[in-house]
């Protein structure tokens, strides 16, 4: 028989403490731990710090994040600053220029030799070398290696480390500004997806029964919509912009998380400790968030980390098909797709964003693999 706490018979309510006696007659003789107890996360961190690959990739991520925060503020250029006279400048980096790389030179092909003395077109001192002289239709043609910065009349001592784009905007500033935007989009998307997924999965898994069947089928129907189609349709409806990109990526992005959470809830909601808590009168909300959800933290963190490179990829994919964020704001995807159209003339405009996105994606993938191994050692080595 179960008594209501408020309706206990009077004689039970007023029992004196002396009326109780311990069931155990002897003292409990547990030994004290000799070492400090290691919690779940500390344990995971110890494992993570032992994996060299994870440490390196984590450091790369941190470095890129820091650069994305700092670089756009200290280059001295703004990401919108246009300069028509300085279009498509090649990279020029102080220090390295003496080694013959990144020295701001470019070879101009098929120039008339007799016009080389014309200081209007070729400012003084800009011609470094003349090669490949040949006579075409009685005109001597040649290839000229010029200091492109002097050629364009850029002031001495002005450097664009990664060159400029077709509007004369500094690529270094735009690259890291773009990295910042891409990272923000990725982070917000992942957080929103995780939050929706956790709530949906928790309700579906905890309630079970008809609610669960309905919610699972709804998720299945939504999941059937191809990701590409959903994102494109949503972008068309809401127009270009950061908000619509995030919205488009969260329409079906949360389903994976909700499945994971639902499975975990099914695993844990029948456990004895949950039953005990329920018997003690713990409300549903506390059961969900305090007692069951903490079991999902490990897989959830892993999942969030794995989702980040996916979101970065989606953003640049959308930029490539003309649905990126609104100009003049850059993102890695915008830079890549802008550069792609002049790839054969100015390859450096693609190379740097390509290197950055590749480094970011590889680092995130390796780091999340390491994190998964650390949080769940039984899955070690599985892919």
């Amino acid at each position: 028989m179960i008594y209501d706490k408020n309706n206990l018979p009077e004689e039970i309510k007023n029992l004196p403490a002396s009326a109780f006696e311990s069931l155990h007659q002897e003292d409990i003789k547990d030994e004290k731990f000799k070492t400090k107890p290691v919690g779940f996360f500390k344990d995971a961190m110890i494992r993570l710090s032992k994996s060299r690959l994870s440490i390196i990739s984590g450091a790369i991520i941190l470095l890129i994040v820091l650069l994305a925060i700092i670089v756009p503020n200290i280059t001295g250029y703004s990401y919108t600053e246009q300069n028509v006279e300085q279009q498509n400048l090649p990279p020029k980096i102080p220090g390295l220029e003496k080694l013959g790389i990144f020295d701001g030179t470019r070879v101009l092909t098929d120039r008339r030799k007799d016009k080389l003395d014309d200081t209007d077109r070729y400012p003084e001192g800009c011609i470094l070398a003349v090669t490949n002289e040949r006579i075409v239709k009685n005109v001597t043609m040649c290839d000229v290696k010029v200091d492109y910065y002097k050629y364009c009349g850029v002031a001495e001592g002005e450097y664009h480390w990664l060159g400029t784009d077709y509007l004369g905007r500094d690529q270094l500033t735009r690259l890291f500004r773009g990295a910042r935007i891409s990272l923000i989009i990725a982070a917000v998307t992942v957080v929103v997806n995780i939050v929706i997924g956790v709530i949906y999965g928790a309700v579906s898994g905890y309630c079970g029964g008809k609610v669960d069947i309905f919610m699972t089928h709804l998720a299945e129907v939504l999941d059937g919509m191809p990701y590409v189609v959903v994102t494109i349709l949503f972008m068309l409806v809401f127009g270009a912009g950061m908000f619509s990109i995030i919205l488009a990526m969260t329409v079906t992005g949360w389903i994976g998380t909700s499945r994971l959470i639902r499975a975990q809830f099914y695993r844990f909601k029948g456990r004895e400790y949950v039953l005990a808590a329920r018997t003690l009168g713990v409300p549903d909300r506390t059961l969900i968030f305090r007692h069951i959800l903490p079991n999902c933290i490990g897989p959830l963190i892993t999942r969030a980390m794995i989702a980040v490179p996916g979101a970065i990829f989606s953003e640049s994919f959308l930029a490539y098909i003309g649905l990126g964020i609104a100009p003049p704001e850059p993102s890695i995807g915008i830079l890549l797709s802008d550069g792609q159209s002049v790839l054969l003339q100015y390859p450096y405009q693609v190379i740097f964003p390509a290197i950055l996105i590749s480094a970011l994606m590889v680092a995130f993938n390796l780091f999340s693999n390491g994190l998964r191994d650390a949080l769940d050692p039984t899955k070690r080595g599985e892919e």
Partner: protein
Amino acid sequence: MLKYILSRIAAMLITLFLIMSLSFIVVRLMPMSLFENPEVPLEIQEQLEDKFHLNDPLPVQYFYFITDIVTDLDFGISVKLRPGLPVFGILIERLPPTILVNFLSLFISIPLGLIAGTAAALKRNTWVDHVISFFVVIFISVPSFVFASALQYFLAFKLGWFPTLYDTNAATLAEKFHSLILPIIALALGPIATIARYLRGELIENISSEYLLLARTKGLTKVQSIVRHAFRNSLIPISNTLIAMITGIMGGSLVIENIFAIPGQGGLTVKSIMAGDHFLTVACLIFYSVTSLVTILLVDLSYGLIDPRVRVGGKKS
């Protein structure tokens, strides 16, 4: 089994319906420049509006939109890219190159992925495994369009081994394939790595399992036991990644076709988005959805064929 198939098809249809509804919203939202042109006389505008049911209430328009698509495959007419032509015709015309590229990528990625995965699993923790694992991480992480740019610049432009763009006027089939090699490689690298990665994990697990020990004990050679038992069992989970791979290739094809100027459906989709030709975009997307839904259904069903346990259970968890 029949019940399972029917429930899958029902879910598929609902999904498709959702996509069509979203498409309707897109089409309705687009500015109807064709009908609001001041140079067109008012009477003709009204006639046009009547013809395209623009004066009816929205639900009726929605009904027309859906029935036109379902019964006549009538997705409307192109407004910007090829004005006046029915969208479905343009779409069909652009299909062959896309099918060619996508199928060939899938076709070469499956065997290559299987070989790489098997090699990595059998030579576990040797340099072979390390090299393959290294490339797997690179290929999985780096987006296909970055590879496409790299291939186009280095192999095609710098070294001149391949044409930089798709050769539409190719005289012979060999020339045509020559210009298709780079896009196919760019699309296939990701799937190859995905298969290799999964297969390696599965094979390693199966090779160290007890039933493989039993197979060896009863007298099978190592090759026999691995080919007949471990490999076959590893293929089951792989077939499930096939869905992601196919949709991945189709999605990647959108960008790759544009980079290599392949006159295919992916390129058409991107061009229609950029031009704001919404009827065309919507038709491409619905077509894309149908293809991917049917693929998912087929892979799901074949999953039941490969793995008898799914068939008996009738329902996947």
